[in-house]
């Protein structure tokens, strides 16, 4: 007898033992037991702190003024949302996330298409492509800041001098385009991520159907537009959403490349500062709650997209 666990999730598999309701109950608990440590651990370590944050966000609480602790109502939220700095930080977070995710998604799609063919050295190219993702984020940000962007000894200006000689323009990349400097450093790290997921998507295409379409006279563009792209849609969604969830939280690159200066402070950096240097706990919590609300919007779609893939995989 072979029971597919995925198709029959809650069907008891050993029939003989589970006769009485007592036996069934102990059986249920025996099933749950291996799950409980992980579940309890996660609830305690991730859910409790968030509840405290939620609670604190409605409180007047600054560590510098311990006597003035009390209930603040929606005051923190009002202050956070009307504060010019925070509003700018919200805007930066949106630009940064959208910029990084869209650019790396498009690049990742193009590169995945290039790598979805057989050619000499394909494995080597794939390995080269993954490398940026395997550099520690802080190290990657340091690399871009000092070794590439630096106006006097960075590689970019060095290449300009190579090409145009001594009179080559030597721009100060970070000061001129602080946000784009961060975006490009992150695109370099996140394109491999998008590429890997999209490549997996491409390789799961039903090739026989596509060949049949080719025989039936569909041209290459039609096959891409009407067969490959619809098949890839959920992989595009998944990589975009997972990418957004990670990039929206980015702290390392902003902290390292500009230290939040030049108008590049995003919400995570602003929250870090509000609480780490200004010690305004109530306000930091309110900003944290706002990030969560923003993330829930993305996460709802992300969960739905994962669950679609999940059900398809289980249905196979």
């Amino acid at each position: 007898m072979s029971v597919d666990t995925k198709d029959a999730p809650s069907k008891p598999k050993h029939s003989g033992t589970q006769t009485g309701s007592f036996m069934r109950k102990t059986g249920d608990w025996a099933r749950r037991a291996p799950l409980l440590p992980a579940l309890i651990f996660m609830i305690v370590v991730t859910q409790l702190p968030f509840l405290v944050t939620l609670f604190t966000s409605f409180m007047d609480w600054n560590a510098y003024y311990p006597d003035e602790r009390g209930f603040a109502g929606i005051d923190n939220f009002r202050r956070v949302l009307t504060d010019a700095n925070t509003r700018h930080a919200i805007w930066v977070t949106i630009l940064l996330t959208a910029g990084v995710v869209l650019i790396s998604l498009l690049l990742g799609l193009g590169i995945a298409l290039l790598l979805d063919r057989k050619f000499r050295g394909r494995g080597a190219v794939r390995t080269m492509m993954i490398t940026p993702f395997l550099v520690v984020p802080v190290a990657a940000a340091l690399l871009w800041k000092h070794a590439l962007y630096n106006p006097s000894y960075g590689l970019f200006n060095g290449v300009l001098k190579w090409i145009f000689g001594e009179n080559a323009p030597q721009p100060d990349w970070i000061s001129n385009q602080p946000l784009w400097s961060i975006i490009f450093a992150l695109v370099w790290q996140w394109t491999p991520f998008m590429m890997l997921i999209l490549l997996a998507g491409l390789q799961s295409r039903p090739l026989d159907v596509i060949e049949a379409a080719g025989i039936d006279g569909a041209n290459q563009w039609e096959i891409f537009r009407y067969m490959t792209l619809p098949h890839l849609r959920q992989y595009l969604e998944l990589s975009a959403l997972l990418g957004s969830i990670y990039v929206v939280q980015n702290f390392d690159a902003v902290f390292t490349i500009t230290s939040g200066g030049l108008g590049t402070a995003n919400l995570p950096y602003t929250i870090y500062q509000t609480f780490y240097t200004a010690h305004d706990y109530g306000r930091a919590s309110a900003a944290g709650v706002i990030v969560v609300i923003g993330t829930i919007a993305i996460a709802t779609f992300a969960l739905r997209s994962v669950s679609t893939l999940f059900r398809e995989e289980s249905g196979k």
Partner: protein
Amino acid sequence: MSSGVTIVTGKKNRGGGFVLSGLAWVVGILFVMPVLWMLLTSFHSEEDAAKNPPDIAAPLSLGGYKAFFDTGPWPSLANSLTASVLSTALVILLAFPAAYALSIRPVKKWTDVLFFFLSTKMLPVVAGLLPIYLFAQSVNFLDNIWLLIILYTSMNLPIAVWMLRSFLSEVPVEILEAASVDGASITRTLRSVVAPVVTPGIASAALICFIFSWNELLFARVLTGTVAQTAPVFLTGFVTSQGLFLAKVCAASIVVSLPVLIAGFAAQDKLVQGLSLGAVK
């Protein structure tokens, strides 16, 4: 889009195929270039590293590495290793039985539980940072590596549960039944029947958890000080320029990234599964 068409079907088109293969190589080299540049610069002397235009053929030197190790990175590297290895071990210890209860002998509503794990991954780190900081402060737990171990475990547990579940669902149920007929207990079944089949899965989940723990900055930056400081926090000491220090920065970045590069290349084939939380194989 005429050049993109050969890609779609993989049909042999000699001329176009050659161009596309060449393009793939160019793109790959462009992406790996910054890392190669960092590697090369790390082996140059500070004077050569600061040259503009750059001097590729400059004599190699270990000066950058020597300067980096003179700044005393060993304690932070050791802390990173402790935090990553112990949290990864804890993750696997907790995730394996959980994945078992979500695939081989599934509990009721197992999909809900699975999605609960995933949803915790979507809660931004900053949202829980403050209470964790205040709690750690009140019980004198700040600047303690165990605090990071616990937090990294919670950070990676959902990934591991999802990955291991997708591996475990490939375990042939017949083997398990044969084991239970023989009267083997759950622990024995787990250890002697299931584990060997999924060891590769455990290995790749562990490597991915190791990478994420090793990379983490925000928690480590806020919650540790001089004692439990990790390698990424140590690297933030290089954020502001200090005269001629490019070779040292590159050496530092290479040394700190090395474990991740090794773990990542080792887990290359399973990387996508881990990154997509098991949703994509």
